[in-house]
């Protein structure tokens, strides 16, 4: 069934490409070699790739065709949504309390149709060196412990064929810019250093709906989910199969039936111009706020309760909690998950936090041990996260994994607690 759906998808892609009139901007699609097709369709390699998808637990956040169903209690997004919409089985008062604490992982992009539009090498690179491409989403793709060959295999699974066969004309950029403004693409999408109209992190559907309603062009107003998922269009030229972009702009649902991108019913020449603007217009990377100096350790006493409430409980313990208190699953940072080995790090109690984590030698080691520069490892991991979001991804993984860095005040608090001898 799964293979059948890929064949159908592949056939549709090929049919779509062949049925279009070839204009002077379209290069005839390079025929896929028999070897490549054979490799993509080879059931063993696809089964191996699917096993990797399941090992790295892509389906805990994303909808993934063919992957084994993940139980709600292990599915980050579904669980959060059920808590928020009140359908999770718990007391209403608890749901209200938890709901107020949920700020992330309420939606994640579906991976079901990515093969029809995204480039395989971009998917591979995104797996190995994730970039934050969705400014309004708080969480972004975490850096999983993938090897290059594993990333290659997974990207080939998701993108079995590509339509990278279209070239865009610089002559169309001006017309494309007009269309970009007319259709209010910038209401939802950032474009490099031009943020989406609601602003980074601001996701009021009312504002966006008002913005689009004045145009009367979209069939549906974007929802809050659509605003959260809208990627920065700066990445399109690296992300998209050039041959799929015009089709996407003309009829997004034809490539991805469940997409939240509105259908503006663009004519092909409009879509081509808009695509040319998105693909070719000069664009600058958005600037990140400067980090400034690290804050000094605090003069006042910082005890466990404060560090726990403001840092460990607020951010860390959802992944680093207690397997004894959670029926055997202490979160991926404790009992393992997303391809990571079980490290046993539990930040849900004082004694557990001081008990360290399991090293490669199978023994527990302090997470407060100092590195060569005298910085405790826990603090270092927080500082590394700051570097990761700036594109510097070294061997150490920054924490919190796949989330915005800790604030300087949070780091200061933990550092002060450590400097004071970890008072209870």
């Amino acid at each position, binding site marked *: 069934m799964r293979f059948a759906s890929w064949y159908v998808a592949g056939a549709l892609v090929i049919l779509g490409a062949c049925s279009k009139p070839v204009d002077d901007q379209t290069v005839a699609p390079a025929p896929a070699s028999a070897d490549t097709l054979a490799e993509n369709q080879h059931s063993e390699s696809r089964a191996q790739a699917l096993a990797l998808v399941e090992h790295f637990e892509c389906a805990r956040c994303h909808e993934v065709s063919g992957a084994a169903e993940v139980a709600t209690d292990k599915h980050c997004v579904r669980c959060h949504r059920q808590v928020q919409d009140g359908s999770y089985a718990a007391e209403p008062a608890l749901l209200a309390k938890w709901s107020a604490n949920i700020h992330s992982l309420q939606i994640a992009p579906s991976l079901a149709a990515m093969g029809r539009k995204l480039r395989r090498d971009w998917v591979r690179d995104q797996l190995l060196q994730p970039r934050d491409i969705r400014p309004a989403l708080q969480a972004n793709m975490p850096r999983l412990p993938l090897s290059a060959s594993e990333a290659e295999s997974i990207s080939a699974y998701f993108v079995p064929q590509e339509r990278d066969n279209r070239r865009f004309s610089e002559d169309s950029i001006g017309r494309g810019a007009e269309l970009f403004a007319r259709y209010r693409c910038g209401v939802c999408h950032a474009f490099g250093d031009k943020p989406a109209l609601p602003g980074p992190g601001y996701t009021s559907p009312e504002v966006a709906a008002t913005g689009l309603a004045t145009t009367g062009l979209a069939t549906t107003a974007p929802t809050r989910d659509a605003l959260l998922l809208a990627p920065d269009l700066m990445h399109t030229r690296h992300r998209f199969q050039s041959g799929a972009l015009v089709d996407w702009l003309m009829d997004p649902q034809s490539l991805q039936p469940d997409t939240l991108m509105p259908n503006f019913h663009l004519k092909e020449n409009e879509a081509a111009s808009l695509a040319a603007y998105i693909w070719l217009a000069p664009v600058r990377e958005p600037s990140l706020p400067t980090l400034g100096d690290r804050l000094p350790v605090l003069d006042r006493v910082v005890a466990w309760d404060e560090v726990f409430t403001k840092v460990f409980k607020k951010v860390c313990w959802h992944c680093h*909690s207690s397997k004894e*208190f*959670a029926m055997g699953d202490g979160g991926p940072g404790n009992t393992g998950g997303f391809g990571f080995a079980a490290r046993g790090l539990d930040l849900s109690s004082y*004694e557990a936090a*001081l008990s360290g984590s399991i090293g490669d030698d199978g023994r527990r080691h302090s997470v407060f041990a100092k590195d060569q520069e005298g910085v405790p490892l826990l603090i270092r991991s927080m500082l590394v996260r700051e570097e990761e979001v700036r594109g510097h991804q070294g061997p150490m993984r920054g924490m919190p994994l796949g989330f915005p860095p800790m604030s300087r005040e949070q780091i200061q608090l933990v550092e002060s607690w450590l400097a004071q001898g970890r008072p209870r």
Partner: protein
Amino acid sequence: MLCRILLSISLASATMVSASADSRACGNAMYVDGDDAVKQVAEAERLLALGKLQRAEEKVEPHTYRFEDAGIQKRANIVWATVAFRRERAKADSWPVKGGLRQLEAELEGDADNPVLLARISEGYALAPDTAARARATLEDLAARDVMPDAYGYRTLARLRFHDGDQDAALAALTLCKNMSKRKKVCTLNLKSPSGTTETAQTKAPSQPRATRQRH
């Protein structure tokens, strides 16, 4: 015979505190709020840390409560045993201490490098001369790896070092104990020195941390 009957009755009437047994991710954050068994054991741990031994014990008393989930029962066992070790007049040959040690030794079989288990079992071993050396070796290892889970571990280590004549090392352990403990009296020991005189071992209260200069 009468004891057996009474024990059977008490076990049969023990309250089963249960929680659903399916594996859950990230559930800790929710269970602490929503699950009675988790809340009860968490409260026992809190009371234990505050030194309220009797109240902590009441929350996990094995003849009254049995917890359906093995992990929660394990935490309850640790609390129950620790209460026995920390009683003011705890004796190594008393049945609560011996029972607590047996319980924790059994827990260690599947979790041999758990610092909380190791530190607590060392508190029990430290009560008897023939197991004190084993307790010290374990606590020295935890200290060397910097995974001592609480102030009581350093207090026990200080006592053992003092008995072995390592006064400076004992005071160093007491300093770490004081840094960590909310209750400073935990880290003041009335000890018999190796020469036989009774001394009060304590360190100066840790100085207030000073602000460092802004980093550049």
